């Protein structure tokens, strides 16, 4: 016997309204995204402000590259699944 099948009604296409004023939840989401961006900018600015000539040792370079790689990884695309 086949399972019970329930047809799900379509949504009225007139429901689409991208010009609807954004509510508090969506405005909060945008504000929180901005906070997240500020944190990234702070991290990026910190790294960009490091004077290259100040990196003297392998340990200096290692620390810098570590932070830069971690930051760049945040923005990299997810690797394709094998």
């Amino acid at each position: 016997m086949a399972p019970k099948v329930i047809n799900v009604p379509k949504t009225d296409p007139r429901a689409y309204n991208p010009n609807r004023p954004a509510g508090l939840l969506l405005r909060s989401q945008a504000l929180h995204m901005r906070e997240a961006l500020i944190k990234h900018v702070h991290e990026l600015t910190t790294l960009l402000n490091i004077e290259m000539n100040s990196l003297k040792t392998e340990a200096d370079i290692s620390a810098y590259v570590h932070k830069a790689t971690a930051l760049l990884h945040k923005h990299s695309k997810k690797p394709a699944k094998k």
Partner: protein
Amino acid sequence: MSAGLDNLKHIVVLMMENRSFDHMLGSLKQKYPKINGLTGNESNPDTNGAIVKVQQKAEFQSQLDPDPDHHFPGVDLQIFGGAPPGPGRAANMQGFVKDYFSQTKDINRSHNIMYYFDAEKDLPVLSTLATEYAVFNGWFSSIPGPTICNRAFAHYGTSFGQVGMDIFYILDTSIASVYERMVQAGRTAKIYYYDQPSSTMEIVNLLKNQPQIFGTLDQFISDCAGNTLPDYSFIEPCYNDHPGPDGGQILASDQHPDHNVREGERFIANVYNAIRTNPTLWQNTVLLVVYDEHGGIYDHVIPPVCTPDGKTASADATGTGEPFAFDRLGIRVPAVLISPWIQRGTVVPGTEDPVNAKIFEHASIPATVTNFFLNGDAKRTVREQKANTFLGLLTDQMRQDDDCVVFNNLQ
């Protein structure tokens, strides 16, 4: 341990937005008396003192604009009917119409807050899942307040003392999110948001754990089909109307007023079908569909007290003139648990049955995931440690394939 629990490999949680239990499922009581819904006699006074009964007149869209108040002071009014905070006041769920009038300034429109759906006719997906699997009579939002702090309980088991919309816990590392706990223990966990234009409400994890614990709905569908679903998945609906990548129209599916409720129905059906149509996944996955909070819409059940989480929101933060010790839950929301190992028509008793009641709230989500996958081994709030877990609903008997519903017409 039940055979259903023995077979369990995946927990999936879909959290929708801003609808109360009675508004969505209250009508089911007429046909299913064990479901603690509406008799039709529940009422609120309006600002003229007239008695406004609940009415089966809810519509998919356009009825709840402006967005009903669901911030802490508004919910306090809804629960206590306007009695000022202080010793001895009693919850009575009599302030919903009054509160909505403060926004609409229109007596007739303020009555809309008492409207509910004919669930079997209007909401074939949610009502079918509720009656075919398990529905909770006593699943409450964690805080009598808005989205972000309530969703925090689903991710962390606490809101870190907050009752509003701030991303307050951004620097608080005392409690790891359930995703971090899983990953640190070598398990897998993902938050699937709808797409990038909709993104996530869980910004803190986006900051700390991008991209390893995030995916899109398309990836969820693909992971279901390819048997690559993580141990734990949390799904977010589409939060806004926006153009699709091919120029089409993508509708918000979160059911947040004033988004179309029917599109949310279709979204829930899509998530369910992604699991249901993979026979292997279907047998070893449990799906919880739950709403983050009531969205200011009427429910008749008084929220019960709960284990405090050791935090206190100040009187300034609550906006009521009184501090809040996180010792009382928010308003009741729809919650449905789905698995072939759950018997049809399961109704989990709530406050209407004090002897057998099992009360749930969003801290039950990380509690369940952490107990099942990590044997409870994580630093957690007392609130989460005391929260009821929901996998006890899985039985020894797996229902046959032809005994489990599928949804159609979703393309």
